[in-house]
């Protein structure tokens, strides 16, 4: 399951979608908007995406994980738009017969998502300024 949404992420629904009698393990990862980054206060983040390509790349992220590990099911949802501190920006869920694969695949999926899916965040700093986050671009620090 792949989804881009403007609405709050229902991670319970996402998790239920990967549960199965053939799975003994489920791993869910949530990315949430953190208040402090290197001592600076974040008030909110705005997420934008190249929708068509992001959906294609998210499907590749799922397919890649399913190629590497024997998984039962995977699901990814990424939120777009304006997110306040503490809100969930991304949820990745994976199930497998045994726990090692679920942990490894879950981690791999969020890493790949951050590397290759065309989604961008804009910082809304506490001092009122805004700043697109583009790792490696002049004047932009890498944010992990």
């Amino acid at each position: 399951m792949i989804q881009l949404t403007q609405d709050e992420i229902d991670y319970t629904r996402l998790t239920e979608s990967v549960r199965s009698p053939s799975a003994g393990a489920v791993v869910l990862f949530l990315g949430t908007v953190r208040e402090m980054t290197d001592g600076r206060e974040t008030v909110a983040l705005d997420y934008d995406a190249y929708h068509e390509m992001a959906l294609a790349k998210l499907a590749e992220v799922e397919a890649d994980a399913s190629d590497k590990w024997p998984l039962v099911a995977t699901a990814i949802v990424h939120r777009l738009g304006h997110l306040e501190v503490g809100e969930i920006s991304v949820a990745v869920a994976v199930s497998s017969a045994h726990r090692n694969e679920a942990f490894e695949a879950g981690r791999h999926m969020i890493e790949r998502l951050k590397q290759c899916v065309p989604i961008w965040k804009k910082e809304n700093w506490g001092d009122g300024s805004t700043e697109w986050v583009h790792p490696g671009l002049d004047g932009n620090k890498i944010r992990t």
Partner: protein
Amino acid sequence: MKLAVRLFAKAKELAGTELVHLDVPNCTNVGELRGVLSASYPALAAIAPNLLVAVGSQYADDTMVVDPSVEVACFPPVSGG
């Protein structure tokens, strides 16, 4: 030929538009496209070397030839998650 290029994030902000229309020679490749984009939109010149280019929703290197029938997009490094 006429080529429409979609822009995102800081590239869109700097250009002031999400879709630019460029005049490029036939058989223009992605590397040459960066040059045309910088010349037409000077605000993008500083980041043009670091822009990622997607052709038909796949990342394209500088040698790939662009074609108006396949969507082209330019954007800075991604930061989702």
